[in-house]
């Protein structure tokens, strides 16, 4: 937007104004400095995640066991879908930088095509993230939470996981909800799980081959599996409630803090992607109606491009911190 900036004549006076020591326009520089501050925000979040993880380093969930789903396909596919999401985001970064390049050459139609592809990539990414949240909230196998807030997961003798519904023995029971006409003070009903603790305990005692896997990790980073006798004792003495899926208070995969950070950081990143898509759409329509053609500069595309690449950049770190390390 060179046309909107006043340029007083400098007459070789260094401090006379109009000098551009960084050789970049005001808007672009401010976008860079916004990116620096936003990067520090994300670093703060990720460092806080690291802090909590180091605090519970011997009982933190293993990402490979948490994110094992791919849409429309059943089975155990650790990380494939996240890798796909990463790939989509990098690809949309490529189309964005191609749009910026087409803008440098004042090729309006190419800018339109590439911006459109970028928007599509962004939408696929946000949609995938929503799906990932959905599967994480729904959960996979279910677990029992202990009085200390840790989880107990159930495995067969060969160490493979088994879902609560597959071994719990049904017990017939009736449940009536209390209305406000019957009492003044009462707690509202807790969310109902598909099986309750009594059913899980009964099924576990009946099935001799099942074992309990604790949240704790051994020296090599594998979960510690208890012996049959220990498992029975543990379930009887410490089991408090059944937990299915993850939310801000309970997490069947392990420490609830993991779920809290997952929702907060990927949510904050997803919000950035979403707002990036909105910016792209605004610029997309501006390109179509020829605003930048008249301005004779496509620098606005470059500025939203910077933001879009930044979103990609943050994802690279989120990906490593949450899914790989």
């Amino acid at each position: 937007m060179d046309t909107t900036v006043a340029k007083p004549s400098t007459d070789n006076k260094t401090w006379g104004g109009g000098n551009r020591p960084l050789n970049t326009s005001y808007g672009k520089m401010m976008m860079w400095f916004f990116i620096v501050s936003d990067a520090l925000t994300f670093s703060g979040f990720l460092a806080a995640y690291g802090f909590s993880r180091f605090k519970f380093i011997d009982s933190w969930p293993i990402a490979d066991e948490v994110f094992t789903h791919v849409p429309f396909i059943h089975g155990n596919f650790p990380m494939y879908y996240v890798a796909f999401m990463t790939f989509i985001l990098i690809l949309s970064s490529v189309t964005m930088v191609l749009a910026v390049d087409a803008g440098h050459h004042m090729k309006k139609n190419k800018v339109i095509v590439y911006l459109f592809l970028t928007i599509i990539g962004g939408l696929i990414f946000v949609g995938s993230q929503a799906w990932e949240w959905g599967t994480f909230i729904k959960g996979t196998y279910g677990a029992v939470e202990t009085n200390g807030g840790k989880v107990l997961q159930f495995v067969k003798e060969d160490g493979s996981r088994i879902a609560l519904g597959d071994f719990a023995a049904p017990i017939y029971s009736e449940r009536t909800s209390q209305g406000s006409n019957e009492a003044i003070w009462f707690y509202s009903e807790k969310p109902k799980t598909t099986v309750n603790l009594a059913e899980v305990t009964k099924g576990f005692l009946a099935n001799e081959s099942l074992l309990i896997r604790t949240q704790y990790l051994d020296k090599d980073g594998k979960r510690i599996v208890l012996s049959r006798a220990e498992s029975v004792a543990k379930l009887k003495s410490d089991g408090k409630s059944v937990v299915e899926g993850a939310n801000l208070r309970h997490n069947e995969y392990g420490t609830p803090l993991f779920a809290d950070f997952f929702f907060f950081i990927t949510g904050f990143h997803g919000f950035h992607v979403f707002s990036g898509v909105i910016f792209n759409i605004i610029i997309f329509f501006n390109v179509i109606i020829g605003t930048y053609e008249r301005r004779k500069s496509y620098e606005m595309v470059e500025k939203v491009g910077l933001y879009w690449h930044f979103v990609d950049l943050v994802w690279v770190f989120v990906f490593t911190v949450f899914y790989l390390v």
Partner: protein
Amino acid sequence: MAQDHKLAIFRGRLKFKSIKSKIWGVFTLLSIITIIEVYLGIVKPEFLTTNRLFALKYLNWIFLILTVIKAYYITWDFMHMRDEKMGLRRSVVWTGVFLVCYLLFILLVEGNYIFDVYKENYIKFNF
């Protein structure tokens, strides 16, 4: 706008003919790095998970270094940092790098300390 893009990566060892071929070249590089990361994350070779350097597994070192490499190429080539003046480059990059290193150092050391308190002292998560 200035059209003078620097077209070489790997310190000038790999030169591209045009800005477009450079973009696709960098994209290929980023994809390869991502594939390596995912492959290592799924396979988790025994040698890399059992050995440690500064309390961090070799595998995690590899992940972190590859991530920084990816971040470098996204910033330098997609965000055109390579074409900016040194002043802008330093004011953006070093600000971030110094503060992030400081933050990570303080918080990770503190987290480790709290872990030790839980483990060695009277406060227990053992029920």
